[in-house]
């Protein structure tokens, strides 16, 4: 079952030039961090701690655990900086990939012992974008991302949010929504392609 509305013609927005410049600056910082430059790490911390803490908190929901995981993530970034390979994505993308993965790992290892109430969490994600704090320093870009999410169909957005912010596997998403696995895969894929195009992400 495909989301037919996906076939609507795309509205295109030009890419926010700041994102690119910021990405380059972060890449340069990360290269200094890779040489053991602690001052550069401080600047990197200030640049990424908001999104790192924010995404970890979104997935874990518990502030104390999120703080702990955020610390793990940033120390991991320091440790692994010499191995960062720019060919595999932007510096910020790399840091946030590490952050999200850590948060999800934490959820899944906790799930092994205590089962989360999936359906409650699923309902919560309906409000996912209402709780973004006003004081975020990434407000403008956050706003842009939220606008981009509007180009998704409701069904695509629901699956993408459950997967990314909910920290669920596509199998769990399919169980929560009561739809076939193949449909979830299609929604995630079409949704990400659409977001990518809307945000002007280039590989």
């Amino acid at each position, binding site marked *: 079952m495909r989301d037919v509305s996906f076939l609507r013609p795309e509205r295109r927005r030009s890419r926010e030039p700041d994102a690119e410049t910021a990405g380059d600056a972060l890449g340069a910082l990360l290269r200094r961090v890779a040489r*053991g430059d602690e001052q550069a790490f401080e600047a990197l911390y200030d640049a990424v701690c908001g999104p790192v803490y924010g995404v970890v908190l979104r997935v874990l929901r518990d502030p104390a655990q999120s703080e702990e995981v955020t610390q793990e993530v940033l120390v991991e970034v320091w440790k692994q900086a010499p191995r960062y390979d720019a060919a595999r994505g932007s510096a910020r993308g790399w840091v946030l990939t590490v952050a999200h993965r850590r948060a999800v790992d934490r959820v899944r290892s906790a799930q092994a012992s205590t089962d989360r109430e999936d359906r409650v969490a699923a309902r919560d994600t309906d409000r996912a974008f209402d709780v*973004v704090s006003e004081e975020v320093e990434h407000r403008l870009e956050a706003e842009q991302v939220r606008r981009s999410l509007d180009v998704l169909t409701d069904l695509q957005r629901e699956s993408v949010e459950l997967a990314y912010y909910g920290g669920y596997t596509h199998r769990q998403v399919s169980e929560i929504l009561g739809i076939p696995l193949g449909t979830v895969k299609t929604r995630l894929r079409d949704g990400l392609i659409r977001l990518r195009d809307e945000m002007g992400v280039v590989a």
Partner: protein
Amino acid sequence: MTILPPSGSRRSADDPDVRDLLAAHALDAVDDVERARVERLLRTDPDAAAESVSFAETASRLAVAAAAPPPAALRARVLDEVSRTRQAAPAAAAGDPERESRSASRRTVRLLAAACGVLLAGCLGLGALLLGDDDAQPSLVASGEFAGGTAALLEVDGDYVVVGEGVPDPPSGRVYQLWAVAGSADPVPAGFLEEADAGFVGELDGWEPGAVLGISEEPAGGSQQPTTEVLAHVET
């Protein structure tokens, strides 16, 4: 003995199915086995790798949208820990011959491929296998029941490989760990069963003929001693 393909959707790497997982992978919405499948594809397929990078960048924007200020005290704690933490050595550049020999050796890769070949050989039965054009010819040392499927211990050119077929994926965050049990001694870690194209496979490390082979399910990264019931005892 009948050898069946493993349950679930796992298929060989040239199966286009794995491409359908690229988006889910970028969103971390895959289990460990699926992640291994995708990452294998990414190592060999530049187009898939490029698409994966673009998906990961897109997913990271979703993180930016969730940005929230962390507690102020966190900064000092992170900087303090960083000042006491040694950084990793840089990885050798891709294509660097040193890297090739340091990462999983060609031999290991060939062994694993050989063992996968064993599985794919299907109805021949594990005891009477030929690998066709590969020079390595495995022989069956022992086999036993494991997690509703079969675990087989094969010898290939003096190395020992364990193959699991018809075995369910371990739960997320868990792995199948191998143990060598010599006489009445405590089990010694002897490697892991890893997901392969058509089942599970692992090279035995520290197991000597005559010892019992044990397999248990452990937390990712493994344990020093089995922490769960040993699911298989393969006597040799």
